[in-house]
């Protein structure tokens, strides 16, 4: 098995320390940072994502895989920066005001990072003006809103309105999700993209950024 395949396989098993060691080995072998990231770490996360979508693995496996990915990024990050590898896109994510559920949102964040996105996480109970401010500050391509309560999902409409009145609505894509959210709800509030799970969300985000790039 090549070192890149090793990285992917170890990441899928969630072996954080071994992933880190394998990344270091790949660097020593002279592989370039972008290749290690895309064909090692991101390839592994992609496979985990597919399995998650098909319900073959679940939240705990995704979390430990993401932890392993982060361990692998430690030695890689300086090289990525110095070789000028840019993120595939910039995402601002948060759970809307009045809602404190964050497990699903965190998964979306990890999967997006696994697709090479730069994700700014605003946490939970995020008022709409904070989404707007963060969108402007980070020049976000995508705004992601998560809601788990049938009462708080209406806050998403407020975020869409606030992005409009903040004058950034047309510069970015608004994605919404969370258990009670549906595609038709997404359309009804004027948001752009709905995804039922974290892996689909990350794929959609990657597709959006690939198009606009």
């Amino acid at each position, binding site marked *: 098995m090549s070192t890149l395949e090793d990285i992917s396989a170890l990441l899928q098993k969630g072996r954080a320390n071994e992933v880190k060691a394998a990344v270091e080995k790949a660097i020593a072998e002279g592989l370039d940072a972008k290749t290690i990231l895309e064909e090692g770490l991101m390839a592994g996360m992609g496979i985990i994502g597919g399995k998650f979508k*098909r*319900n*073959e*693995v*679940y*939240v*705990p*496996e995704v*979390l430990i895989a993401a932890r392993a990915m982060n361990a692998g990024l430690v030695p890689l990050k300086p090289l990525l920066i110095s070789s000028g590898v840019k993120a595939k896109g910039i995402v601002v994510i948060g759970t809307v*005001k*009045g*809602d*404190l*559920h*964050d*497990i699903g949102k965190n998964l979306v964040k990890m999967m997006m990072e696994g697709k090479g996105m730069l994700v700014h996480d605003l946490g*939970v*109970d995020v008022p709409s003006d904070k989404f707007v401010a963060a969108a402007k500050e980070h020049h976000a391509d995508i705004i992601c809103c998560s809601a788990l*309560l*049938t*009462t*708080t999902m209406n806050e998403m409409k407020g975020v869409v309105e606030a992005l409009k009145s903040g004058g950034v609505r047309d510069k970015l894509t608004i994605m919404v999700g969370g258990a009670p959210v549906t595609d038709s709800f997404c359309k009804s509030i004027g948001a752009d993209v709905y995804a039922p799970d974290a892996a689909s969300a990350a794929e959609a985000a990657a597709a959006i950024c690939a198009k606009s790039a």
Partner: protein
Amino acid sequence: MNDLLTIHEGERTQSLAAAKGKTILEILVASGDSHLDAPCGGKGLCGKCRVRASGFLSPPDGHELRILSDAELHEGWRLACAARLEGEARLERPSHGAATIIAEGPALDFVPDPPLRRLCIELPPARLEEQLSDEARLLSAVEAALQAQAAPGNPRASVPRSLAFPAMASLAKAARGMGDGAAAALLDVVLWEGKIMSVAPARDARPCFGLGVDIGTTTVVAYLVDLETGGVPDRRSALNAQRDFGADVISRIAATMERDGGLEDLRSRIAAQLSGMAASLLDAAGASPEDLLCVAIAGNTTMLHLLGGIPPAAIASAPFTPAFTSRQSLGARDLGLDLPASCVAFLLPGISAYVGADIVSGIAALGMAERDECSLLLDIGTNGELALGGSCGILCCATAAGPAFEGAGLSMGMGGVAGAIDSVWIDGGHFAHSTIGGLPARGLCGSGVLDALAACLESGLVEDTGRIVDAQEAAALGPGFAALRTEVEGSPRIAIGGGVHLTQADVRSLQLAVAAIAAGIDVLLARAGKSAGEVDRVFLAGGFGSFLDVRSAVRAGLLMRELESKVVVAGNTSGAGAVGACLSRARLEACDAVRGLCTYVELSSEPAFNDAYIERMMFPGAT
């Protein structure tokens, strides 16, 4: 030759004559009052017919040795379908949960001392030289009567100092009921906290009732309480009349926010439902509305807001703020209940938006706050409330498990009605099941879901990560189990029996629900600085808690193994607390004391919860 089997069930004992060689199950069935589940039909396979028995019985057979642990055998547990009578024996039947016990009217372990009581008073005639009002004469007559009643050991009623104004007119009339007012009048008066609530001409042998109510999001139960004997002669239960506004509290709250008049709709539904239950109970008891002195109501915080017509919107989003959680005492009519003006209603106290009066009432009913030992109360419904502690303090939280255990959200989940699989067990390389009413299987109710999950884990068809094994792995488990694994559009599922199955997505939903409860327990234990082994008792409250199989709950990771032997099925503890509050001032005040003793743990802002939650999504491995 006949021998005797003596049955002990709670306070009751009963002796059955029976022939040697018969199994306990056969004897009970022959007596026509088995009360015992025997889902496998007495084949010694399901283990659901467990009883505690001692005396001259056959030694444990192969089935018993296989199903019962050494500790259980040591404690006298037997399978009723296997243990045979060889002489005189004694049987302890598991009690059937407080709901049924309460209905049978057991001696509750406190002296009835109802907050509202009725006295028959002789009101002396007015005398010209005294110039005393009817009110003044009545108050001193009542004081004298109470003093005469006072005896050591009898809780003292507080002496009334005033008369409720609405009762004034009836007093004026009743005081002269005999004609010119020259003779003494016999009056029935109702007392509450130093106040005379009502006055009426005395009638012979009038009963005095209270109503203990539990308003659940799903079901509403009302118990008729005899305030003199302390018995509970009758009860009514029904699905909550607000159900068509949504199954969970958030949907109900959303219904009050979405349109004008929504709150009033929900309020009047539940008020009408309670009034109807009260009327039906009084009617059946041959009593008149005036014989109902008080109503004590437990329920979650949202249910009490809706009954009171108090806008609940702030409960539905962070920071989850209820308008009130303290105990409310008010006229039943002020709650819109169709009851006499003198009837007093108590809304029992709660703790927070999501740990309500139902939990406080349950803690009070179980006497948790009065014991030094460490008890854990689990009320596993859509909302999954937990309380842990004892007289030194109680921690509580709400874990939002979701409705999977109520049959909702699963591909073939259903409520506990006829045709629902309620029990699943492994019978030598195959799954076997029983259904409610013995009808063809239509789906899985809560206890069936948990059993099915446990059987899937135990058979190896589902591994501890929650993944359904692939076809190759299934084949290694033997032909019986392998045949249960099928695929629909590439997605695996397990046939439970009778055309009912558990899909991979179902298992994932169950992981979320099971882990929420287990992680809630973890967080409370950690906060209390205790290990699971240090818990002395686990009370399972609510419908699901009464029917679940404890071994399946442990196998599926809902309960830690250390808790298994501590489980007490407690039934409708919320209702039991409401009954207690009607019957005894001390029990009513105990609810307030419980409220003071409880500390609410907010899981949303508890990082330890998320860690525990993820960890508990993994099912426990095989032992």
